[in-house]
């Protein structure tokens, strides 16, 4: 009988340490890894190395899906392409007015800002990347894009598509990088209501939804309002569209309204995205602690007789 877990007959054959001992060893090793990754973030080097080794397998695994998408694209009819083309041309014409005047307006804006002695807005620059696939982890909302640290991508850069903000780069590998979508629970973005200028923080709420937090129940906000980035965080450029308000639940028993939003960008779709350059944050004003006001000694301490 070969020793199995739970009971151990006298060992006739050498089989190494007992199963329970091995279990304890590997479980404690896993816990050490969990703690090292979560608390100290010291395993990034190991992760990078393993990711580079398994990158070819991942690339090959992507081939059938890629081929399937190419095939379906090939069979998309001439008619649908033609209508799409027409639509795009019409949209281009509709926005031509703004596009043509953009350069002129930017120049004018720069001059006006100089006149007003305001800090210049940083021009947006970016690089185009393609979403490869959604990460398999069911607990988070992340996608993998095909530009990595070898293309100069750094953690923290914002990612947008043609409709609005998509998310933020949270981890880079040599050839790919991970984008945490706005709908992830841990992702928050400072926004501004376009109509009223009200500032707030938008946080992810899990499956394809967003939540505007900590706004008073009587705040000036209504369904259909567009939220844009406020730029207060120094990460996102101000004015990028983020989300639309879907539903407001003003319950007086809570001090804050419950506001559900939907993202404007195609957060759960695949396609091409733009990774914006890192924004140069203006230096913070030095924080000098206020000198405590000490009452003049003597005058108050003296007790009236």
């Amino acid at each position: 009988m070969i020793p199995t877990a739970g009971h151990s007959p006298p060992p006739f054959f050498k089989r190494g340490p007992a199963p329970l001992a091995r279990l304890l060893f590997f479980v404690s090793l896993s816990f050490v890894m969990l703690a090292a990754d979560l608390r100290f973030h010291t395993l990034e080097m190991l992760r990078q190395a393993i990711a580079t080794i398994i990158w070819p397998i991942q690339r090959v695994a992507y081939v059938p899906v890629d081929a399937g998408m190419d095939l379906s694209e090939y069979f998309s009819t001439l008619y649908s392409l033609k209508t799409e083309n027409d639509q795009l041309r019409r949209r281009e014409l509709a926005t031509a007015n703004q596009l043509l005047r953009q350069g002129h307006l930017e120049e004018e804006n720069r001059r006006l800002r100089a006149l007003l002695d305001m800090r210049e807005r940083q021009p947006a620059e970016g690089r185009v990347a393609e979403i490869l696939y959604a990460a398999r982890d069911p607990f988070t909302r992340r996608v993998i894009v095909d530009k990595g640290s070898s293309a100069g991508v750094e953690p923290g850069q914002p990612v947008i598509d043609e409709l609005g903000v998509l998310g933020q780069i949270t981890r880079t590998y040599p050839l790919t990088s991970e984008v945490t979508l706005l709908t992830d629970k841990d992702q928050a973005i400072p926004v501004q209501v376009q109509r009223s200028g009200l500032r707030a923080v938008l946080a992810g709420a899990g499956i394809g939804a967003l939540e505007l937090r900590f706004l008073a129940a009587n705040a000036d906000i209504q369904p259909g309002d567009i939220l844009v980035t406020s730029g207060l965080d120094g990460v996102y450029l101000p004015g990028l569209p983020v989300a639309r308000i879907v539903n407001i639940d003003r319950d007086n028993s809570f001090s804050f309204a419950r506001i559900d939003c939907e993202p404007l960008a195609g957060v759960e779709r695949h396609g091409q995205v733009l990774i914006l350059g890192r924004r140069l944050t203006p230096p913070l004003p030095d924080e000098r602690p206020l000198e405590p006001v000490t009452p003049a000694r003597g005058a108050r301490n003296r007790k009236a007789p």
Partner: protein
Amino acid sequence: MQPTQSSRRILLPVNSWFVFGTLLAALFLNMVPLGRFPAMPDWVALVLLFWCIHQPLKVGMGAAFALGVLMDVADASIMGQHALAYVMLAFGASVLSRRILWFPLIQQALHVLPILVGTQVIMLLIRLAVGANFPDPFWLLGGVIGSALWYPLTYLLLLPQYRPVERDENRPI
């Protein structure tokens, strides 16, 4: 007839490279990006469990830990999450391995079901403990689908070990 311990069908010894190859193929299958279909079975867990039950001396907790670390990186999850869950799975399989093969395959699948779902529950607890969202409830269906695949999987993975079935009166076995 599918071979079990009680079916008296004797199998050829397993080829170590075949075990390695199937584990690699399972890793490959896990990496195929099929969108966000939540109830996808975890192929690595399934194949690992199969070999831990059928070859407990070849595949054990060490292999489970290594595969778990690879899955952690491929999945972009926390380092150690899959490793811990797979090690527990390998331990459960080694406890069961002497007993489970005497059952018919349907009952084997019923043994496998709590191990696969338990693996997912361990991962769920780790992630909830560090403050992740509760995932799509259909995600837990992955283990159920995995155990439903036990029958075809057994046929497929034992195929290289089958002997020819022609009878020879002069041969002892």
